[in-house]
């Protein structure tokens, strides 16, 4: 500090060094009116605001909600806890098959590539906020009769008719879980790359979701592929359509492309750092680190 400090700087510096306000250094403002004390004696103190007789005078105040013998109001109706643990529940904002077909018809989504949450977020028409417990797409059956596209789609929640509608057209569907940290990354990948961090591992589903994502009927990403192909056949029998053969499809490689359970993006492994400015990918060399990311 070569120059003479300004007055404002001095004050700030001093305020930083001064002790905090506490009970030991608090005092009333000068000139405050003095409050009158409780009167004593023959006429000075009558009831002191507590009235005559009853619970007021005896200071035996009733518990909150007690209505002196009536059935209390809070016990009249049964408890219906609609919002119980709402802060822990997972929300899946819906995306209908009609919306998906419209996106495909207007070339907002490329069918030649696998469609995942990142591809749908990049269109800008799907409202998705991971910070208010949104956990991904719920593909709903609206417009199911007009759905004609052949897609490889990965969603977070869906129903049986939707799976049937997609597989009837020769497409494939997977339900996959993403932890909130991965969801933020999928929503805006560019923002994540700009932070210069390594792509993290995707976490496994929580306890109450693991049954859904390991079930072949839901086409879960943790299910046995052989069981999934069996369930594809079963669903075709149930809904009465002939299942198009995936092996003979010209887009076989695209339709069977899947992410690793630890992977967030297609083709990009956890542990890599993406430098989108210089268009290079940094990969760790350390074997221990690579093992950690592939566990």
């Amino acid at each position, binding site marked *: 500090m070569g120059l003479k400090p300004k007055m404002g700087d001095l004050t700030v510096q001093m305020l930083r060094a001064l002790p905090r306000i506490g009970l030991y250094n608090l005092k009333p403002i000068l000139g405050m009116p003095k409050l009158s004390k409780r009167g004593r004696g023959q006429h000075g103190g009558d009831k002191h605001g507590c009235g005559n007789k009853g619970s007021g005078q005896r200071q035996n105040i009733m518990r909150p909600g007690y209505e002196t013998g009536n059935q209390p109001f809070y016990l009249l109706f049964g408890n219906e806890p609609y919002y119980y643990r709402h802060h822990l529940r997972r929300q899946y904002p819906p995306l209908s098959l009609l919306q998906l077909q419209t996106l495909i018809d207007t070339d907002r989504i490329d069918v030649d590539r696998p469609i995942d949450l990142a591809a749908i977020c990049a269109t800008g028409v799907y409202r998705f906020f991971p910070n208010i417990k949104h956990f991904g797409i719920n593909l709903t059956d609206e417009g199911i009769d007009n759905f004609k596209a052949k897609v490889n789609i990965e969603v977070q929640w869906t129903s049986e008719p939707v799976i049937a509608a997609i597989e009837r057209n020769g497409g494939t569907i997977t339900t996959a879980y993403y932890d909130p940290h991965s969801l933020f990354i999928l929503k805006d990948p560019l923002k994540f790359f700009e932070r210069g961090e390594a792509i993290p591992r995707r976490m496994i589903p929580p306890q109450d979701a693991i049954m859904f994502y390991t079930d072949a009927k839901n086409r879960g990403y943790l299910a046995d592929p052989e069981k999934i192909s069996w369930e594809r056949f079963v669903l075709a029998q149930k809904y009465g359509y002939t299942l198009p053969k995936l092996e003979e499809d010209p887009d076989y490689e695209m339709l069977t492309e899947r992410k690793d359970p630890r992977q967030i993006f297609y083709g990009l492994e956890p542990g890599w750092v993406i430098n989108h400015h210089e268009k*290079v990918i940094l990969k760790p060399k350390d074997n221990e680190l690579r093992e950690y990311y592939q566990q």
Partner: protein
Amino acid sequence: MLPVRGLIRAVKQNPNSLKYLQLNLLRHGSYFTSKPVGDPSKYTDYEITQNPEEWKYVERLFVKPRIPTPKPKDSYPSGWTPQTVDPEKCTWFVHRNKAHMMPVYLDISERGMRRLTKIKKVDGDIWAFYKELKPWLEMVNRGKILGIKVNEVQQEILIHGDHVNQCRRFLLDRGF
């Protein structure tokens, strides 16, 4: 009371006394915002790769700078169709919006009690459009007299009630 004024006076008289007052104020940031500690060579080693095959997977993640113009197709299962009408032969014209959708909207106000159908981006003779739309809409609604407002300055038409699907059908039939 604290002797604030006395302290200020003391510091003004002798600025060197400040250094006795200064505290070591640390801002405990997060791991990602902290500065690298020590020699960079102590960090884990990495290789820099520039593979176009891998970069394709990165590029597809980026949002397109513009909404693409839909390519012509044989069929549109979703019900969406591109405009087929020739604008030079029309007295009035309804443009598509930048997402290539029909600019027919439903305005809900008064806590859901008031519903207005709004047709925007009406170009050309808006009154001719009104004269064509009004009898058609009233015919579809079984002779019900509809309140329709023509906003010539804003190039939009407001219809009392929810007639979004009917208006979309009207425009679609005429190739807009």
